[in-house]
């Protein structure tokens, strides 16, 4: 594989893998809750139906994307990818700076099981409609994000295969861990993953938008690595800066009035 493809394929695979990992973990939490509280048959049927819908979506979207002019595809998909990446990176920075709370997979699981225990089963012909719908909804919602990530990261650069492989690898990892552990994957450092994914997707998005509007990136595809470095450096600088804005250090001498303002 030549240098340009390697530059593309590696980050593409990594971005798709890490982003999909986060989405699959969130889906697994809810599917585990449904399976544990309402029964695995209903959880698996709902999940299966969701997966079928996603496969149909990819089957329709894949060929349709091939008909779109490359510049337009890069601009539109790149813009969406950039907004998606910036959103993740923004939240990851705020969580790292303790401005907003970390996502707690264990708490999410507990909340979901409580809701499912409280709602009475809505049975129709032996099938628990609420359980099936819950599993279906979460698989579709998180799956749509994965499909978007794979398409956005892969289509603009003709790298759908590495992107798809990344997502598939994430699915296998999460499924295997879920089968082994039978509990939410709370040990996975979700914010760290989202931080990394935010950096990667923001960099990719910026690159593809630039390509779409005809910018000439210096060193061509190697610019992606420079963009990744720039976003990472900025994010690492912003975390302590934002933390100091949110929780300034209490001054201890001569400013008792000011000291009282801070908890």
């Amino acid at each position, binding site marked *: 594989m030549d240098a340009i493809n390697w530059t593309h394929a590696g980050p593409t695979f990594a971005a798709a893998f890490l982003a999909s990992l986060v989405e699959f973990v969130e889906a697994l939490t809810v599917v585990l809750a449904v399976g544990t509280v309402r029964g695995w048959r209903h959880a698996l049927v709902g999940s299966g139906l969701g997966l079928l819908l996603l496969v149909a979506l990819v089957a329709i979207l894949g060929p349709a994307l091939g008909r779109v002019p490359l510049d337009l595809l890069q601009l539109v998909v790149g813009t969406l990818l950039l*907004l998606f990446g910036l959103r993740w990176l*923004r939240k990851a920075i705020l969580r790292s700076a303790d*401005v907003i709370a970390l996502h707690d997979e264990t708490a999410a699981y507990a909340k979901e099981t409580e809701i499912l225990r409280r709602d009475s089963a809505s049975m129709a012909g032996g099938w628990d409609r609420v359980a099936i719908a819950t599993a279906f*909804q979460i698989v579709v919602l998180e799956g*749509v994000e994965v499909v978007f990530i794979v398409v956005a990261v892969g289509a603009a650069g003709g790298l759908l295969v590495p992107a798809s492989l990344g997502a598939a690898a994430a699915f296998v990892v999460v499924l295997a861990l879920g089968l082994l552990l039978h509990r939410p994957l709370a040990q996975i450092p979700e914010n760290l993953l989202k931080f990394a994914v935010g950096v990667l997707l923001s960099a990719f998005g910026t690159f593809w938008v630039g390509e779409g509007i005809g910018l000439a990136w210096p060193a061509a595809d190697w610019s992606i690595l420079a963009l990744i470095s*720039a976003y990472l450096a900025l994010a690492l600088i*912003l975390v302590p800066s934002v933390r100091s*804005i*949110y929780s300034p250090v209490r001054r201890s001498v001569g400013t008792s009035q000011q000291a009282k303002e801070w908890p």
Partner: protein
Amino acid sequence: MTWLKAIGTELWGLFVDDGLLVVLSLAWIGAVVLGLRGLWPEGGHRALEAAAFAIGFLLILAESVTRAARRARKKRMSATVVGRR
């Protein structure tokens, strides 16, 4: 319909969390496409054009997170004052 609405809300939420960040990002892309590109001379300055384009988004991100932190601090201070009354 509730399910469709939930999907629509979720899809919107994929891209829009801070509305101003989205507006500024789109405006920056528009500005570069429509006007600013003409300001850069041809030739060796293409690298600067690409760098400036990227720096724009870095600044937009920095503005968004610092604004969120200031807003969160203000909210926390208000909650502290109300709690003491």
